[in-house]
């Protein structure tokens, strides 16, 4: 019990100490770097949060995550089911999917802005594009690993095709989909910040660029800490949803 709480806290404390030491060392030759230090950053974070300045950006970013994730699920799950069910579809698409998966989604940024215009649309596209792969692949492996006994059960009940899909296949692969969603959230959260650095006027990524332009380095560090904390919380939520579904 103690080690479950104490060890992670000790690890975090060690990182903060390293961070403080780094800031001191950096400030030696560059006085402005002292703004990167933990205490200054904490003060900025407190100020930004209590003044309510950050919340609109957080809300905008979370909305983008939600929309991007939803799009990725809407595209990734059906494609994953197809991949899991049809050998021919898998053979036809595997090289293409592997190819696309290995291209950093941010590479599509200029194209996305050209096609979708400036604003939220290209960000949604990039996030969905980044997140669709883990969902697709996990869905496909979920279909491939469906318990044959469940399908036998469906047959013994003379289940219709729709009944089999809705009552056995979809719930049967939900745990896999949730694993995919959890990985997708991690990726989306990483892609979000750079994706918000172009052509948008709100969001955490935008805010980071803004602090840079204002030379508000303690605020920059404050937002980085916040981004990490929110990402941690999102991952925790996704993990809890997975555990809850399986009643573990």
């Amino acid at each position, binding site marked *: 019990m103690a080690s479950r709480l104490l060890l992670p806290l000790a690890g975090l404390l060690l990182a903060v100490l390293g961070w403080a030491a780094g800031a001191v060392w950096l400030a030696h030759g560059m006085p402005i770097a002292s703004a990167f230090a933990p205490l200054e950053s904490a003060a900025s974070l407190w100020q930004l949060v209590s003044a309510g300045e950050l919340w609109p950006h957080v809300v905008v970013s979370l909305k983008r995550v939600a929309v991007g994730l939803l799009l990725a699920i809407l595209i990734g799950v059906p494609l994953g089911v197809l991949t899991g069910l049809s050998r021919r579809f898998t053979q036809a698409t595997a090289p293409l999917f592997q190819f696309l998966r290995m291209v950093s989604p941010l590479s599509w940024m200029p194209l996305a802005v050209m096609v979708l215009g400036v604003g939220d649309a290209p960000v949604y596209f990039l996030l969905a594009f980044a997140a669709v792969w883990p969902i697709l692949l996990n869905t496909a492996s979920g279909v491939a690993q469906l*318990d044959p006994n469940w399908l036998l059960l469906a047959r013994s009940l003379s289940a219709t095709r729709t009944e089999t899909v809705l009552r056995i296949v979809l719930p049967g692969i939900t745990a896999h989909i949730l694993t995919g969603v959890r990985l997708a959230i991690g990726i989306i959260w990483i892609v979000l910040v750079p994706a918000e650095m172009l052509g948008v006027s709100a969001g955490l990524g935008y805010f980071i660029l803004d602090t840079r332009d204002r030379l508000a380095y303690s605020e920059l560090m404050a937002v980085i800490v916040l981004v990490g904390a929110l990402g941690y919380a999102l991952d925790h939520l996704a993990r809890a949803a997975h555990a809850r579904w*399986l009643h*573990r």
Partner: protein
Amino acid sequence: MSTAVSGDGGTGLALQASGLNFSYADGHAVFADVSLDVRHREIVCLLGGSGCGKSSLLRVLARLEAPASGDIRFLGEPLQAPHPRAALVFQQPGLLPWLDAAGNAGFGLDFEHQPRLTPVERAARIEQALSAVGLAGHAHRYPAQLSGGMAQRVALARALAREPQLLFADEPFSALDAITRAEMQALLVEVVHRWHTAALLVTHDIDEAILVADRILLMGEAPGRIVREWVVDLERPREQADPAAVTALRLDILSALHALRAH
């Protein structure tokens, strides 16, 4: 719970199969010219070594697969698809982990090709089935929280909730430890009698067949066929009631098996 025996054409038979043949896609014959029947309320064990085609035969009899040729009648009617009054139990419980024990027990009850039930009837069926397998207090536990034996009880409850006239069971206890297996064998006999259903049980376990069956059919292999039949007319619990008869029967079956192997 009591089930009226309905429309068997006056034969007294729950299941009647004749001249069944079945082959794999490559033409390899799995079993050939199998005929058997199961009377109402009778427990028939299909005994055979692994690979003799007994599981395939069960699947064909339950109409999960179509025979290459032959005739299957369930309650006197030709059987073309899995019948709502025939339920299956497999070696693995195959419970759905997202449903609790009650949800799993009731899983077969609301499909398009199953009889319509009101919510009250449905709840009553689930409750009766779970209490019949001794899990009345565990309705809201999930498969991840159940032991192997309990999971197989839920699988049995899922079959019973459909009030089957015939229970197909494919080595349902072979994945369980010896003590749990003995409990489950006794439970199976008990519920089959209480539910007034018939059962066709596939097993490779001679003792299981002797303890459970009213009739034992021995299957030979390559291709699978029924080579011998024993009517087990012994009082239950059999090992206590007539140990000498049980031993004699065991020896008889063993020597028949040896004769098959030597053949």
